[in-house]
């Protein structure tokens, strides 16, 4: 039931992201589609406007038409003038008035043609060279007609009828030639118009197809891309969400397998992983503290309760020893064993008490090198082991010398015990050596205790600071946890490196006392083991 609710919730979230992405894309795509639709209809209206456009709407057509009409009119009034003139010459002379009128008509017709030619001259130059040259021919043709008419009129009164008709025939020729040019121009214009119409139709068709296709394609791309993008955003978020829920259930490794991308989602995953890491650390610390606290509460009463019976055993044994002394009963060795065992029990109780003790440190500024020198002088180590000193930090740290002594004693005794373990012998003639070294490291002092012993197996290395974990045959497993507790109480950290067969190095990082002059910038900060 719970799981199906979760799925529903995720789908709901996914739908919300999808809708947001689609809305964003729609805001871009819809105006584009509107532009497409407008283009479609506008191109349709351009086509129909063009369809209505005829040859007679072209300026070169109407103007050449004027030339043609004016020429015809001129020819008609010209032939009228010839026939009236000849009739008057060979008749009774009564047609003189009509001849004068015919002359005026011809003059008027000439003026009209000249005007039409001027209009043609005012036409802008055509983009088509052929059309342009034909227009020039039309203009010169019409001028030729006028010139031939003028030269005919010049001999009209004196010339013989034969001369006159001969000139008139030349006028006719020029007129026919002019007409041919005009027809050619009309044919070219008509073809050009038809070609233009076809081309425009094709272009508009392409434009409309692009507009329609673009709209449909845009819609599909927006929809598909939107869903894809929404999915790409939503999937890692969903994955992260379920990982976060697993984290909430206590699975600290839930986020480790999340793939980290280079985008904001990747940053988010990184932030979550960092949070999980801190959470795990703090959870570990809480667990450790809870264990310590429980142990501490028990330890006080247990140690008290144990030390009384230990005292009883010891006193009773002392009495037995006193009463049997010198009687040759052979119990002395047994009594010695009891005594040693009491000591061991007492040492364990002391370890537990020391570990669980909550006590304020009494720290004072201490030159750590000389303090270590004195401490190592006092502390006895088995002669089988050489202790080397490389004390070069020159630094002061705030130490509770009594408590911090335990740190060193513990680390050195552990190392000595490991190297004198009867089940282990150095592979070569290496000496059994413990090296105690101090180095200044920026705001810290690095204090290391290195041995040349058997080393700690990798699978145990991570656990050695856990309470009650021990690799020794004898020991309750509180030595290193106490060391770590004391180091942390001093504001430091401790870590360990070990190679099987080569040895183990414990490194303690302690903060230097403020006011030290030679701070180095390259201060490595140790990770807590």
């Amino acid at each position, binding site marked *: 039931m719970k799981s199906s609710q979760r799925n529903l919730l995720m789908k709901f979230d996914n739908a919300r992201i999808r809708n947001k992405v689609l809305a964003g894309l729609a805001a871009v795509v819809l105006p584009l589609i509107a532009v497409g639709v407008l283009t479609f209809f506008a191109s349709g209206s351009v086509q129909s406007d063009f369809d209505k456009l005829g040859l007679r709407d072209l300026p070169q057509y109407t103007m050449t038409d004027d030339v043609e009409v004016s020429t015809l009119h001129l020819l008609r009034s010209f032939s009228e003038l010839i026939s009236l003139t000849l009739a008057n010459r060979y008749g009774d002379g009564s047609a003189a008035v009509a001849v004068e009128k015919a002359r005026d008509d011809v003059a008027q017709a000439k003026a009209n043609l000249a005007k039409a030619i001027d209009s043609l001259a005012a036409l802008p130059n055509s983009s088509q060279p052929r059309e342009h040259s034909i227009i020039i021919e039309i203009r010169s043709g019409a001028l030729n007609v006028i010139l031939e008419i003028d030269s005919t009129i010049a001999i009209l009164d004196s010339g013989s009828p034969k001369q006159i008709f001969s000139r008139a025939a030349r006028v006719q020729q020029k007129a026919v030639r002019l007409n041919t040019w005009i027809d050619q121009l009309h044919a070219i214009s008509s073809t050009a118009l038809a070609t233009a119409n076809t081309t425009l139709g094709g272009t508009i068709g392409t434009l409309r197809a692009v507009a329609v296709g673009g709209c449909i394609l845009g819609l599909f791309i927006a929809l598909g891309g939107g869903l894809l993008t929404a999915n790409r955003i939503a999937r890692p978020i969903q994955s992260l969400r379920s990982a976060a829920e697993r984290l909430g259930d206590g699975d600290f490794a839930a986020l480790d397998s999340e793939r980290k991308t280079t985008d904001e989602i990747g940053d988010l995953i990184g932030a979550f992983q960092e949070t999980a890491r801190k959470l795990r650390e703090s959870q570990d610390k809480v667990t450790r503290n809870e264990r310590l606290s429980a142990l501490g509460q028990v330890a006080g009463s247990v140690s008290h309760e144990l030390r009384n019976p230990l005292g009883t055993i010891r006193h009773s044994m*002392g009495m037995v020893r*006193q009463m049997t002394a010198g009687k040759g009963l052979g119990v002395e060795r047994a009594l010695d064993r009891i005594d040693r065992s009491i000591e061991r029990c007492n040492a364990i109780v002391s370890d537990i008490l020391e570990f669980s003790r909550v006590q304020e440190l009494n720290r004072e500024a201490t030159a750590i090198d000389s303090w270590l020198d004195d401490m190592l002088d006092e502390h006895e180590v088995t002669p089988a082991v050489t202790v080397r000193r490389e004390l070069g930090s020159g630094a002061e740290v705030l130490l509770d010398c009594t408590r911090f002594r335990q740190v060193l004693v513990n680390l050195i005794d552990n190392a000595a015990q490991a190297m004198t373990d009867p089940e282990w012998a150095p592979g070569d003639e290496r000496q059994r050596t413990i090296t105690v070294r101090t180095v200044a490291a920026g705001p810290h002092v690095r204090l290391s205790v290195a041995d040349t012993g058997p080393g700690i197996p990798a699978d145990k290395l991570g656990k050695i600071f856990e309470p009650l974990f021990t690799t020794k045959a004898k020991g309750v497993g509180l030595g290193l946890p106490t060391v770590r507790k004391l180091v942390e109480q001093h504001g430091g950290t401790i870590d360990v490196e070990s190679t099987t067969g080569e040895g183990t190095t414990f490194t303690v990082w302690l903060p230097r006392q403020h006011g030290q002059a030679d701070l180095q910038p390259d201060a490595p900060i140790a990770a807590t083991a």
Partner: protein
Amino acid sequence: MTSKPVRIMIVDDDQDLAESLADLLQVHGYDVDIAKDGQDALEHARAQDFDITLMDVRMPVMNGVDSFLAIRKIKPQARIVMMTGFKEPILERAIRAGAEGPLHKPFSVDDLLKLFETIH
């Protein structure tokens, strides 16, 4: 050596411990009495004199420190050795007020006899 044996009072609520210590001291020639808590020790001290008192700290009815202070009021010369199995903070009060020791349980008979020599 015609003098009277040294009189010792052991104050401890742990009966086995008190008796084993008493046996051991008797073997070594001491005259030993046992009180089961601080209040009992105070009553013993009112009734008779002891050369040395071995006083536990954690006890029911009256703890060792209060008992020490109370005995000191009626017997200012009494020599009282504190015994403990644990570093009790309240023990400091008794030591500052002149208590001997402390002896840390489980102490050996040698430690005990050495201490007796220094104070008696």
